[in-house]
């Protein structure tokens, strides 16, 4: 155990400023936003939302390690559970949309306005 602890002492957060993780997460989040705005395929939009969630996860882990507080990493577990639930229900909704319209284009959903 002591050897493991010693090897783990080489930690990224001691060498890399936490600001860089902030910037990396901002860039990844923006890529997710770009995907939501840029594409019309609903599945790609879902994947962009996953990318945004992961940007936030990365930032939570970075701050959790920086502050040596494990609560941040537990939050990441909850975000993963919510993401899994969201994808399951979202893809089921998408399947039923496809069954009715034979397309995953989100513009077709504007018919829902009635």
């Amino acid at each position, binding site marked *: 155990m002591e050897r493991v*602890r010693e090897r*783990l002492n*080489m*930690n*990224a*957060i001691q*060498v*890399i400023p*936490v*600001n*860089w993780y902030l*910037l*990396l997460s*901002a*860039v*990844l*989040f*923006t*890529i*997710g*936003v*770009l995907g939501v*705005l*840029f*594409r*019309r*395929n609903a*599945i*790609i939009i879902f*994947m*962009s939302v*996953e*990318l945004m969630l*992961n940007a936030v*996860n*990365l930032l939570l*882990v*970075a701050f959790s*390690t920086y*502050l*040596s*507080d*494990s609560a941040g*990493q*537990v939050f990441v*577990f*909850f975000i*993963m*559970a919510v*993401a*899994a*639930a*969201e994808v*399951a*229900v979202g*893809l089921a909704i*998408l*399947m039923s949309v496809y069954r009715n319209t034979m397309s*995953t284009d989100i*513009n077709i959903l504007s018919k829902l306005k009635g």
Partner: protein
Amino acid sequence: MITQYIFYFLSFLAIMFGLMVVLSKNPIHSVLYLVLTFFAIAGHYVLLNAQFLAAVHIIVYAGAIMVLFLFVIMLLNLNKETEPHKNVWLKLSAAVAAGLLLVVMVGSLKNAEMIAATNTFDPSVGLIENLGKTLFGEFLLPFEVASLLLLGAMVGAVLLGKKSIK
């Protein structure tokens, strides 16, 4: 020193594959690039000493969620030909809007003041022992609520997936 190079490399991979997710024409390629992005992020987790979280991230995202995406894309038989496209002006305005968001975020975060870490640095915080103690101690109620959420999602997905509800 080598840690910094690994950080640069993983960040480059994550950003490049993330862009490829958005820009590639074929939905299947998008899914595969997203898996590579998740692997790069898992590498970041290992770099940050969150080994258990890295393993869970690979299992849940690359193993479960992405397989679900691939299943649906193959079931619906989506490919390059069926891919809908926005017109050029909408794409341009989307890129401008996202670029402006990036400028605002980078501008506000660039000179953010560093908060000083209050407690002393503990390298074992990401190990399963500490995470379990926090998860089943301080966060026991949210943990139980998450199980309810998953049950609800399962029931909802089965109900929506059925052919017709009589």
